[in-house]
């Protein structure tokens, strides 16, 4: 059964049963694989930004994924999510309360942030955000709420 360690950053692997280890392992592996093309693209983009800044020319076009890279991200991301969901079903109610509360709060705050930013962008007050920014905002919010939930309950 799952037990949090390092303030919720990790868990005691040896306490998981064989099936849970397999489910969590596949999920984490698929999550890692899912972001490989996007990470390479992001590195290329960062290189272009640095080159543009060094040569005094304008910044490069916003980063866009190739269609296969987007499908790769969705495919492996979905695989990871399905295995993590099945892993979660085998854990106890405290783990699921921490996880569900974090996901709910992160989703609500991300939606609020983008709704407000969208209104401001519509009014020309702020620039529009890159479509991938939703991942960053959600991920940061999820981490923050996850740590808060572990500190509160675990």
């Amino acid at each position, binding site marked *: *059964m*799952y*037990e*949090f360690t390092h303030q919720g950053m990790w868990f005691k692997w040896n*306490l998981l049963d064989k099936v849970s280890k397999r489910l969590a392992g596949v999920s984490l592996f698929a999550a890692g694989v899912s972001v490989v093309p996007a990470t390479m693209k992001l590195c290329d983009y960062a290189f272009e930004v640095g080159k543009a800044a060094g040569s005094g020319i304008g910044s490069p076009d916003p980063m866009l994924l190739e269609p296969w890279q987007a499908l790769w991200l969705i495919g492996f991301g979905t695989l990871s999510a399905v295995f993590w969901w099945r892993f979660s079903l085998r*854990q*106890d*109610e*405290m*783990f699921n*309360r921490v996880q569900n509360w974090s996901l709910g709060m992160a989703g609500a705050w991300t939606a609020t942030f983008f709704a407000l930013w969208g209104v401001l962008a519509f009014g020309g007050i702020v620039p529009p955000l890159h479509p991938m920014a939703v991942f960053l905002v959600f991920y940061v919010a999820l981490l923050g709420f996850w740590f808060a939930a572990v500190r*509160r*309950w*675990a």
Partner: protein
Amino acid sequence: MGVTTRLPELRQAQRLTQADLAVCVGVSRQTINSIETGRFEPSLSLALLLARYFGEPVESIFALADPPAD
């Protein structure tokens, strides 16, 4: 409004560790620890499961910390 519990007392009376009790009711040791220290309020089903395990009514194991005055 918090919840108080007699869980540590009942568990120790049976000479069980938190890990032993966790295995008996199908949760993690961390969950038992959090219930005993008052950080985590169990669901109704887990509270009933603990009550059945100790053979006590659920209200004798868990009680409101600050019940409203009559």
